């Protein structure tokens, strides 16, 4: 839909940085409490898409000595986990040669999902694949779950199991505005703005290509949850213009503001673009060592109730027990 102004994206899914911090804190806190009370954080998703919560263990806090008790992930560690899987998400999309739009939609779904949940509650690997699956359905590039699972040697049933909880967590707000289209629109507009000659048109084309890779970077940050897609596109274009030196960018910004009768001032807008830049600069990808450590912690958080663990029915929950199945659940994707 062309109208971002009246979209659910604008109305419900653009936050302030404080709100974002708060949301991640809340889900982290909730998972921590669950770990204390139940000895596990994992919420199981059944074949019918319904959720099973871990049971409270009356003496969970007492019956284990401090050292073997699983430790929850910190907010920062959760962030690393999401960053890691967002990267994996793009790898999977590239492997399938999905268009940018699908990849962007899936990424935004993934980010939105983990505003509602902690990575300790739902395995990001499953959520990541389900987000791709859902994005394909929405963008009319239907790929069967089986095909998707096969392509990356994952069980596709788990994608189907997660579909409902993902759709629901997205509150069925499924239309997402990616900045790629805005980039295209601004480039067309710039052609007119500069009365571009053939040479300039070629330069704008090169600039567009650079801007697209900049958008790719921006989408890995939290910026898509903080800024509208048009601003994300302009931030990417500004960086691209610094590289290609095609036009006076500030003059262009002033021009669009005046044409749109925007309530924004040029300083507002520049401030937003600077903020988006700084998100990209702040972006940190976890090291292998980080991931090893986080994964170990995550596995212990999930330790006592994997769905493969048939023994949970008998409620025989020994702290030291870890099934070998669970050990495979890590950020390892074929």
């Amino acid at each position, binding site marked *: *839909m*062309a*109208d971002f102004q*009246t*979209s*659910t994206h604008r*109305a*419900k899914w653009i936050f302030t940085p404080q709100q974002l911090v708060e*949301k991640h804190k*809340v*889900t982290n806190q*909730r998972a921590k*409490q*669950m770990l204390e*009370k*139940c000895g596990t954080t994992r919420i199981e998703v*059944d074949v*019918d*898409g*319904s*959720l*099973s*919560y*871990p*049971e*409270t263990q009356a003496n969970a806090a007492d019956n284990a000595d401090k050292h073997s008790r699983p430790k929850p992930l910190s907010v920062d560690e959760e962030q690393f986990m999401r960053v890691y899987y967002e990267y994996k998400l793009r790898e999977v999309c590239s492997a399938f040669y999905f268009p940018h739009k699908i990849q962007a939609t899936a990424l935004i779904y993934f980010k939105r999902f983990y*505003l*509602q*949940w902690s990575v300790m509650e739902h395995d990001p690997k499953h959520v990541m694949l389900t987000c791709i*699956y859902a994005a394909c*359905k*929405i*963008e*009319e*590039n*239907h790929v*069967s*779950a*089986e095909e998707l699972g096969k392509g990356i040697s994952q069980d596709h049933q788990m*994608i*189907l199991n997660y*579909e*409902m909880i993902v*759709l*629901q*967590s997205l*509150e*069925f*707000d*499924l*239309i997402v505005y990616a900045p790629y*289209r805005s980039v295209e629109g601004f480039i067309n507009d710039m052609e007119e703005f500069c009365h571009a000659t053939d040479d300039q048109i070629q330069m704008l084309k090169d600039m567009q290509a650079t801007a697209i890779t900049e958008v790719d970077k921006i989408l890995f940050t939290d910026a898509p949850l903080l800024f509208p897609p048009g601003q994300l596109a302009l931030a990417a274009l500004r960086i691209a213009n610094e590289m290609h030196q095609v036009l006076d960018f500030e003059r262009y910004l002033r021009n669009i503001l005046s044409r749109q009768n925007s309530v924004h001032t040029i300083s507002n807008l520049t401030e937003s673009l600077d903020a988006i830049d700084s998100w990209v600069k702040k972006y940190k990808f976890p090291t292998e060592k980080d991931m090893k450590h986080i994964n170990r912690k995550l596995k212990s958080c999930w330790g006592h109730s994997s769905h493969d663990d048939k023994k949970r029915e008998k409620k025989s929950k020994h702290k030291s027990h870890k099934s070998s199945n669970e050990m495979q659940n890590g950020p390892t994707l074929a």
Partner: protein
Amino acid sequence: MGDGNATTNNRSVSNSNNNEKPEWLQQYNLIGKIGEGTYGLVFLAKTKSPANRGKSIAIKKFKQSKDGDGVSPTAIREIMLLREISHENVVKLVNVHINHADMSLYLAFDYAEHDLYEIIRHHRDKGSHCINQYTVKSLLWQLLNGLNYLHSNWIIHRDLKPSNILVMGEGDEHGVVKIADFGLARIYQAPLKPLSDNGVVVTIWYRAPELLLGAKHYTSAVDMWAVGCIFAELLTLKPLFQGAEAKSTPNPFQLDQLDKIFKVLGHPTLEKWPTLANLPHWQSDLQHIQGHKYENTGLHNVVHLSPKSAPYDLLSKMLEYDPRKRITAAQALEHEYFRIEPLPGRNALVPSQPGEKVINYPTRPVDTNTDFEGTTSLQPPQPVSSGNAVSGGMPGGHGVANRSASRPMQIGMPRMQPQVMATYNMAQAGMGGAMNPAGIPMPRGVAAQPHQQQHLRRKDPPGMGSGYPPQQKSRRQ
């Protein structure tokens, strides 16, 4: 909250052994089935919450996608579009429920008692009186108004037909038109695949000539063609181009449908429609459609309008062959036809002039021998209750393709025991109703729906609506 019957069993998310009614279903009293189509079923229910007690809701159940590939894409597309739009002349999606037992989705809409299919049929079958001018004009104006909104939001409906155009029954919105059934609707920018790719059968009577001739790209003009056909049908009570559908191959050339159109409008010519030459079926001309069988246009005779009259002028602009010259919804709303007496009104069913006869359209027949799963109950049919009996075929409420043969139905039977379903609602990312037993309708957080917002607040328990899953520690039973 808002549901006095909510049980304490808030943990039951989905449990096939549980015979208790699921929480979301407890919000409703099921009245019966009102429609059936390829996508699934439509039920009529009434809300129980005190704030809205007795409000009628149409619940559309989508079957799981056939190929075992998760949630029905048709359902998802309909939801995703309806979540983004809000207009008086477009149906309002009030809630989405999930039934975990078969992974199906239930979409709850404000209920509309009538649709153009039933209204036209009522006039045709009974009395044989035409629909009065005021009603025709008001219905058409509101249809165009809703369509203009959709088109300006870059949405093409693609499946407009009388049964998809609903009209509200008695109440605040009496006589207000609601465009329904967005299962085939598309955003322009999205890749538009031919209808046949979706494996969905839609009636060809309202299909634009460019599509019949094999055009690959849909434009909003296809909806305007359908509106033209519907306009003519409102005037004459008969489908304008009633072609026999060819069903031999997955996407056959609909020769008879084109023939019916040519017969009334004359043959299209390259002069009037230059891009005609590029259309696959015209180009190949395997069935000699280029031959000039019909010369004179007889549209005015078919619709019994003077060629100089305003309604005829508007109709002929809607039935313009060249999609690029066809009148748009925005232009149509400005047409002279809507500026001359009788002026269109908000309540299309009740003429503003006193003395005009008000028609009491029959209420939608309801098949009460069903539960929310659509399975027929074992309870034997009960005798038709006096006064409430409605005779008629299964209606095609909300865009239903199949219309079963006429049979008597009754209203007011006790509700069937529905099967277990899980309660879920839009505002809550998580689980059962521990925090929100009433189920919050979707908050949009925009000023565009102040009405709904207020309504929300009332049902919204403190601290909810944030989308956070509540903390819940017990494994389900």
